[in-house]
């Protein structure tokens, strides 16, 4: 972004605009995700949070504005290029590969697979088998962490809604990305598992140095996990700062229109 002496943000957007026909879903969104942070993105339904994800990750073409990934402009780059550059995302409503197993769903997301390049599948079968064994071990480690190991070889369609969300998360973890955009990772997941997911995100952030941008409606979880926090409403960022600051902002309370925002809300 602007030539500051500090390290560039992991992700920065400036004036990002996205219109669907006459409807403006993103109306000049500017926000930054500091390197090494777990940044929160909150806002009422329809605020444009998921649209923001889709637009920065290359799934939607912006109608205006710019996006930087670690100081490098990537506006309008296709998703696979951004994936290679270390950006992964999840979907709010899980999109799994229905006729693949759970393990395969994760394996697909591993970057740089030599066995994906013809003609290697025909002539380097032994090498590929070895690579696949190593990949399988990585997949199982991630599934273990998500409590999904015993479903590894089940078809993805056999999972419950909450488990499908976990597979989404698992796929993002398999990407090896250093910046992961999570769209409501805990929605529809039970309390116990929710705690575990939060702990997993915190640990990946702390130990592996992965930067996260997390959309979440559970504001207590956001308060616990995220700093800084951006609040969007009607396609704009209306507040940024610590969760306490954002909560205290009257425009935020107004945007949520009576939704429980008190710290003690359960």
């Amino acid at each position, binding site marked *: 972004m602007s030539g500051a002496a500090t390290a560039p943000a992991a992700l920065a957007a400036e004036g990002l605009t996205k219109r669907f026909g006459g409807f403006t879903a993103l109306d000049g969104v500017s926000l930054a995700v500091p390197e090494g942070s777990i940044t929160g993105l909150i806002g009422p339904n329809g605020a444009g949070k998921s649209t923001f994800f889709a637009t920065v990750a290359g799934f939607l073409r912006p109608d205006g504005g710019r996006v930087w990934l670690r100081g490098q402009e990537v506006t309008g780059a296709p998703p696979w290029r951004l994936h290679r550059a270390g950006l992964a995302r999840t979907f709010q409503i899980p999109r799994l590969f229905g006729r*693949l197993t759970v393990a395969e769903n994760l394996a697909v997301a591993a970057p740089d697979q030599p066995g994906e390049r013809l003609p290697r*599948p025909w002539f380097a079968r032994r090498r590929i088998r070895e690579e696949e064994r190593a990949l399988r071990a990585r997949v199982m480690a991630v599934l273990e962490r998500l409590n999904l190991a015993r479903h590894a070889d089940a078809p993805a369609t056999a999972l419950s809604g909450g488990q499908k969300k976990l597979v989404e998360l698992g*796929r993002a973890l398999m990407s090896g990305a250093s910046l992961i955009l999570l769209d409501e990772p805990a929605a529809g997941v039970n309390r116990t598992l929710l705690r575990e997911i939060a702990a997993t995100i915190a640990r990946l952030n702390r130990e592996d140095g992965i930067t996260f941008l997390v959309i979440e409606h559970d504001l207590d979880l956001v308060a616990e996990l995220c700093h800084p926090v951006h609040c969007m409403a009607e396609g704009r960022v209306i507040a940024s700062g610590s969760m306490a600051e954002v909560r205290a902002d009257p425009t935020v309370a107004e945007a949520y229109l009576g939704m429980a925002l008190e710290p003690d809300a359960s």
Partner: protein
Amino acid sequence: MEPFALYFATILTLAGIYAALTLGLNLQWGLTGLMNFGPLAFVAVGAYTSAILTVGGSAQHLGGFGWPWWLAWPLAALAGALLALPIGAISLRLRADYLAIATIGIAEILRLIVRNEDWLTGGPLGIPGIPRPFEGLGLPWGQFAYLALVAAVVAGLYAMAQATARSPFGRTLRAIRDDEEAAKAAGKNPAAFRLQAFVLGAACMGLAGAMLAHFFKFMGPDALDPVTATFLVWVMLIAGGSGNNLGAILGAVAVWALWAATDWLAGQLPGELATRAAYVRLFLIGLALQLILLYRPQGLIGERPPRPA
């Protein structure tokens, strides 16, 4: 005994040629979800390429190269691939179903070219005198040897298709087939993978065309009928089980046996009834397809849950 064995060998040879087609279509549709409604186009290109390269010189059509079949067949596969390349490169970037429209169009265009570009294809007269490998062995052994050659080619294509389907490449194709957006999120460029699968399948079809031309020893526009070169291939794949390479071969053999048996039955009918029977047969095959789709959508053998890696 011998006429029966020859008849049997003919049926099996054609079933094998169809198996090459269904394996190609399975790479495209079963594995990748690409709707190719014009296998005929790739069969035609392969058949005429191999025919022109192997026949002796003639004023009626291009030819006179006199190359051996084993040189011409790979080039027939290459011709199928080269036809697929621009079609795929253009239409696969757009919505997936545009490929269906594009392939229907290209099949019709090829039928027109074959019929009208006399200098190249001999027009309605076609290209006669295409040498059949092992013909020198005489009957019945020459025909048995050709059957063995076709079977060997199909076995090779099967091994290639299996290695493709079971590799990370095949896994990515299946992922793109199941959910393109999620595949993008997993870092894949769907258009690039689809193009490879489309071209690979088209190469199989080009090779099938070459095997067909050398079996008939003649190639003409009447040998390229959308019913037998496109519709029947789809029926075979769906009946056998799309997504499964063994199912693709099984479907080709079973449906072709049925097709040939009903052809024989219809031939026993007196004159005018026989021509009507051809339409009844088509109707029955369509009906059978409907029933399969209703009651056994996965076909004889469906796409197995792949074994853990």
